[in-house]
């Protein structure tokens, strides 16, 4: 009996020892080595799954989509799940459009994340996964993504810009508002089974993505299409180096359309040359020529240096000054200020400038916004070139009066002409209506009051005569509306100094209706290979403005003015009109 009891005692003791050892082992694994083994498990099965944020869209002022996202799938391989790379490759290669041999090499890896294809059609990607499942093969997985698409192709390309291969804005609005458009990716810690499927029960920390903000532009695609069509027609017909058109609201400073040629398709930005990528409306500077006469005449009138009755002797078109001769296209005697603008007299403009002090004149040039960036939210804007008086020579002031010795950007000229149109306020140009706030439009921002209402009204009336039969821009008239504007014809500057012979940048800047301006337009045609007698702002850029504005007023549903057709009867007197 004692023997049995002792044997039972030994067995029990051994069992107790064994279970104690098991218990100790459990404690060792579960408690003491918890962090170590859970780390190994996490490394093998846990993954931080990125939940991509949707990039914000870019819309025009009416909500028309200009930049959207197309969902695609990124295909990656987890080498630790692939046991037979050849089998996986043979099933997936037709979907991935990669040769089996090349794919097998890529899949023969132990790495847990190897990108096999960055962009794959959504349907095709899911078909591939289903085919792999049917063959009981694993190791290829999908990650959601998207590619940017510009449905209007090359239209408005310089404003929209494009996103690079990594999804970052590389130009235009895409670049300037990349942060707002991108949003914030979310994430989720997931645990997956040996087939790579997420085990939902063990979902870890999670943060939802913050989608990017939609950017709504002030651009009106109706007007943009009109501007694009006319600029394109001009570019194809005249074969200039470049052509640019800008439409704006002179009262609020909103940019309504901005078109340049040459241009590119942002869906295929890799094919674009640097010349095509350049937004000439903000990054090109040019000598404005006669359009700049609005500055000197406004400044002199505003300062009381000239008035309605002032007559300037224009030396019959040849004015010798400091050893150089300033010439007019048509010689004139005494001219009033409106007549100087109407006939675009260089001599008259130079003589007005010479009546002003250097500092005062320079101050007005700066106050009109020249020589400084307008602050348009686009990359690559330049400030133009306006030298201060201490760097002027004896000729500078007289030449600046008719747009030489000064370089401006098209957008600066638009805003300066808008100052005349809107009663004397230099407005800040606006391209963005709001950032994800529906139809909200922020209040216009006035930079400064440049000239008085009286001055702007006087200059405005003078600019109406520019489009009369005696003016230089009869071909810029718009049926049914009284428009005002100014032509510009400037010789191109040679990089070797001086000017090119017979190479011109011609422009027309105008607005309508004069009494309550709704539309400001600028057309620039750079170096069209035309004969010298034809290459004038009034003959080349003026008609383009007329075409654009004529269609734009109908798009904007502006009511024609009674009698305006008689005042500026289209084409009737164009034969007698000078075209400079």
């Amino acid at each position: 009996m004692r023997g049995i009891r002792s044997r039972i005692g030994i067995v029990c003791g051994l069992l107790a020892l064994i279970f104690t050892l098991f218990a100790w082992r459990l404690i060792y694994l579960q408690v003491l080595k918890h962090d170590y083994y859970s780390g190994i498990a996490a490394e093998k099965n846990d993954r931080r799954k990125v939940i991509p944020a949707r990039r914000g869209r870019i819309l025009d002022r009416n909500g028309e989509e200009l930049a959207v996202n197309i969902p695609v799938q990124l295909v990656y391989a987890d080498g630790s799940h692939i046991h037979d790379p050849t089998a996986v490759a043979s099933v997936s290669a037709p979907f991935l459009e990669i040769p089996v041999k090349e794919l097998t090499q890529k899949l023969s890896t132990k790495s847990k994340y190897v990108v096999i294809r960055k962009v794959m059609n959504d349907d095709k990607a899911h078909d591939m996964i289903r085919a792999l499942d049917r063959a009981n093969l694993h190791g290829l997985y999908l990650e959601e993504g998207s590619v940017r698409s510009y449905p209007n192709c090359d239209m408005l390309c310089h404003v929209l810009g494009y996103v690079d291969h990594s999804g970052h804005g590389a130009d235009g609005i895409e670049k300037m508002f990349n942060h707002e458009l991108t949003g914030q990716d979310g994430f989720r810690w997931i645990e997956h089974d040996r087939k790579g499927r997420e085990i939902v029960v063990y979902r870890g920390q999670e943060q939802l993505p913050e989608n990017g903000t939609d950017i709504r532009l002030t651009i009106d695609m109706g007007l943009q299409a009109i501007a694009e069509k006319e600029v394109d027609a001009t570019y194809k017909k005249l074969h200039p180096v470049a052509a640019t058109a800008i439409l704006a609201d002179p009262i609020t400073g909103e940019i309504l359309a901005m078109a340049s040629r040459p241009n590119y398709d942002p869906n295929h930005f890799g094919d674009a040359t640097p010349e095509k990528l350049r937004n000439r409306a903000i990054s090109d500077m040019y000598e404005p020529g006669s359009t700049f006469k609005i500055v000197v005449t406004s400044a002199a009138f505003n300062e009381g240096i000239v008035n309605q009755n002032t007559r300037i002797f224009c030396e019959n078109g040849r004015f010798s000054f400091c050893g150089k001769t300033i010439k007019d296209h048509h010689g004139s005697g005494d001219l009033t200020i409106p007549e100087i603008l109407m006939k675009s007299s260089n001599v008259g403009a130079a003589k007005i400038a010479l009546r002003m002090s250097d500092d005062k004149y320079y101050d007005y040039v700066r106050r009109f916004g020249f020589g400084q960036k307008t602050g348009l939210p686009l990359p690559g804007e330049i400030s133009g070139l306006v030298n201060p008086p201490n760097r002027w020579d004896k000729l500078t002031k007289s030449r600046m009066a008719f747009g030489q010795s000064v370089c401006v950007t098209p957008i600066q000229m638009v805003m300066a002409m808008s100052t005349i149109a809107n009663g004397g306020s230099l407005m800040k140009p606006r391209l963005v209506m709001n950032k994800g706030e529906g139809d909200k439009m922020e209040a216009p921002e006035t930079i400064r009051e440049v000239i008085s209402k009286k001055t702007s009204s006087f200059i405005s009336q003078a600019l109406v005569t520019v489009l009369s039969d005696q003016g230089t821009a009869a071909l810029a008239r718009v049926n049914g509306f009284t428009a005002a504007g100014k032509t510009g014809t400037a010789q191109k500057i040679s990089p070797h100094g001086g000017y090119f012979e017979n190479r011109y940048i011609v422009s027309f800047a105008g607005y309508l209706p004069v009494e309550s301006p709704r539309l400001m337009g600028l057309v620039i045609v750079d170096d069209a290979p035309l004969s010298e007698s034809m290459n004038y702002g009034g003959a080349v850029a003026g008609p383009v403005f007329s075409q654009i504005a004529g269609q734009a007023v109908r798009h904007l549903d502006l009511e024609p003015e009674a009698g305006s057709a008689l005042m500026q009867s289209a084409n009737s007197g164009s034969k007698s009109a000078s075209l400079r």
Partner: protein
Amino acid sequence: MNQNRRRPSNTIEVNFLARWLVLVFMIGLAGLFFVYLKNQQHSIGDQTRGIESELREAEALNASLDAKITGMTSRGALQRRLEEGYLKLEGIRDTAIARITPAQPAEPDGVLRTASHDPDSRFDTEASPRTMNR
């Protein structure tokens, strides 16, 4: 009879055994219930994953179709189709336009007017050529 000479007997303590059996049964039942719940969790998790996947696919399809529609109805695409003759612009008759702002009647002076609702041409069957030009 001497007590020491009684045959030893192993009595079963039914109460004690029943207590333990009930306890083990309860523990077993709890374990099974735990496993059942865990399986349910996994099953619901799989359903959740399936539904999420379906939702994602639907969203992606929606976005994809949206992008296709945007592409097909973009100005560039419509312009191309217009040029190819798949689309045609049809003028709007004066009589079919109602204006809230005061009407500016079309005058026979060759001047283009904005679209207007001209009461005089209400019963005209032919669209004005000027309107067609729009």
